[in-house]
């Protein structure tokens, strides 16, 4: 593909014993675009995510991240925390994983750990309270405040993250991922459990992240209104394989996709569509 791609997944396969969760999957995600990964339950979407973010080692295939500097990083060769630290890929989780006993602000400070660790001179400068550390900490707090303002949680900065309502926790998790300053943000069902108004706000947030930060977003989502509204490109998976790829509108009308979602075979789906129109 000639387009400027940030993530290139080639022939990715993941097997758990006899079960093939992902089978020879190839797709690209373009830079500064929102790519959605959709498919029925059990299609292997989250497995793809776990491979990209280093929680699983894929059985076969390559995943490359192209930074704007021209550097290319092979994700399958990095292990867990280095994916976030070096490849600058951040993720959120399907079942929210905040630090519930820490405050909202602390959650965002933990996300800036690596930068702050350097600024604190691997703790030693911080221990003696060096001015350089103090200013770095202040900058980190400002950064956190900026994100809190964007997700409209500034007045709850000192509350425990576990006390936030569900929708706020979802947004906080996205803000926390963004605090690591990623080039690629992977969101696992960010709209799950949100009401209509909240998912509209989420769409807006994701669009603004793309516009203001130049971040690329890879998104797993079941909420089709969100997918159709914000994604630039959609990859559809079923039984671990890619069954369709393209612009949201094209994918929506693809009989294979409808068949996969309705659990019917392709011919039946075409018949259903024709009788409907």
């Amino acid at each position: 593909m000639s387009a400027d791609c940030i993530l290139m997944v080639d022939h990715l396969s993941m097997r758990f014993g006899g079960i093939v969760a992902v089978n020879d999957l190839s797709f690209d995600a373009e830079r500064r675009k929102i790519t959605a990964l959709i498919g029925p339950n059990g299609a292997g979407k989250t497995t793809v995510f776990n491979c990209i973010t280093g929680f699983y080692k894929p059985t076969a295939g390559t995943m490359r991240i192209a930074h704007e500097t021209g550097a290319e990083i092979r994700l399958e060769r990095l292990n867990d925390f280095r994916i976030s630290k070096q490849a600058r890929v951040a993720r959120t989780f399907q079942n929210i994983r905040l630090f519930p006993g820490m405050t909202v602000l602390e959650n965002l400070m933990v996300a800036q750990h690596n930068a702050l660790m350097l600024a604190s001179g691997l703790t030693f400068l911080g221990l003696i309270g060096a001015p350089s550390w103090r200013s770095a900490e202040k900058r980190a707090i400002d950064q956190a405040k900026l994100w809190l303002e964007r997700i409209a949680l500034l007045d709850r900065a000192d509350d425990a993250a576990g006390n936030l309502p569900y929708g706020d926790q979802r947004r906080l998790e996205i803000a926390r991922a963004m605090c690591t300053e990623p080039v690629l943000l992977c969101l696992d069902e960010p709209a799950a459990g949100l009401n209509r108004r909240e998912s509209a706000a989420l769409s807006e947030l994701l669009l603004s992240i793309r516009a203001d930060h130049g971040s690329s977003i890879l998104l797993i989502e079941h909420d089709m209104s969100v997918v159709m509204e914000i994604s630039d490109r959609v990859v559809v998976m079923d039984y671990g394989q890619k069954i369709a790829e393209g612009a949201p509108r094209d994918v929506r009308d693809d009989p294979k996709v409808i068949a996969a979602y309705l659990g019917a075979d392709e011919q039946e789906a075409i018949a259903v569509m024709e009788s409907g129109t």
Partner: protein
Amino acid sequence: MTTLAPEPTGVSRAPMIAFIFKKALISALVALVLFSLMIGIRTEAGPTGQLIYWTRFGDLAAMVAIVFGGSIVMELLRHWWGPVGTVRIMPPSAQNALALLRRAVAPILLIFTVLVPVIFYDQRYILDLGILVLTYVMLGWGLNVVVGLAGLLDLGYVAFYAVGAYSYALLATNFGLSFWICLPLAGILAALWGVMLGFPVLRLRGDYLAIVTLAFGEIIRLVIINWESLTGGPNGVSGIPRPTLFGIPLTPGDDGLAARLGIEFSPTHRIVFLFYLILALALLTNWVTIRLRRLPIGRAWEALREDEVACRALGINTTTTKLTAFATGAMFGGFAGAFFATRQGFISPESFTFQESALVLAIVVLGGMGSQLGVALAALGMIGGFELFRGLEQYRMLVFGIAMVLLMIWRPRGLIGHRAPTLFLKQAQAISSDLAGEGRG
């Protein structure tokens, strides 16, 4: 509007009292049924083999009354001390006074501790007890880094205490190094052992980690017992030099501190010196821990306790984060060990049994995981309590067991059941420990 809205505490207090009475009545009824046969009727075999029995209804009534009263007291205490959010029966004024008292506890305790050698100068027993309590406060604060902050259950903490003690003892007796050179060395060596323990157990979580650390504590003790050429085996190391005030010995000789200051020598000087030494070491531990909590490393420890997977997704190297927690905790244990060696003048493997690990862990858990003040209070209560109940002899442990069970019923998250945030924008709000994770790895 105000007339419509009922006053919340007044309304909820009445049914609460009814509830408590009901609960107490039920408890008393259960006690009556249970004890009517166990206590109310006493049976025995008579001299010719026949069954004789007599009644003890007085005792039975007393027992039931105790259960009834105790149940009310327990419920009341539970409501006063209970977690945030429950309706409290205590009037708000009393609550405010309690809150004020709670904030004043730490400064008052510190001032009192500093003044202990002045107040109890003539009472050697109290000074010795103070030193002992402070040693456990320091050990508790050290272990708190590992267990309370990082959430790594360490049952072999005594190993680092032993490493510190033997480091000082062996370096001082073999090479004649002074206490002030050996103290950092003991800390560094213990930290090194912490890292060495940390590496193999990093993959383990929860119970498995606890078992391996428990084994590690025993291994260190067995090595000390069996490596006779170095450690003296079960005979221990004796003749460990006493600490000096930066080179000035606290002895009756001409070059001693008393002679130099021109005051009369008294053995109490050394005890007072040791008291302030361990106080300084403990406060150093506390200061460093409080500082570390506000640094990225400390926040990473707490984040690790909350959710390790999320930490990895945020690019935090969980391996080094765990190792630093182990090393920091071990270092403080090493300091405390060096102090122990210089105070005793003699150490043997018997001082470093699993019981010590369990005691320190109990202090941390009772204090409220992660709370510095809670650990100090728990150390005072446990070690001081041990001495207080010395008169009870073999019932001492029983009393302690009951006390701990009761405490865990009322305060399952320890004496201080709140986590203080490490930084805030507007106002620091205590976070209930119910939200904070306990750590699984």
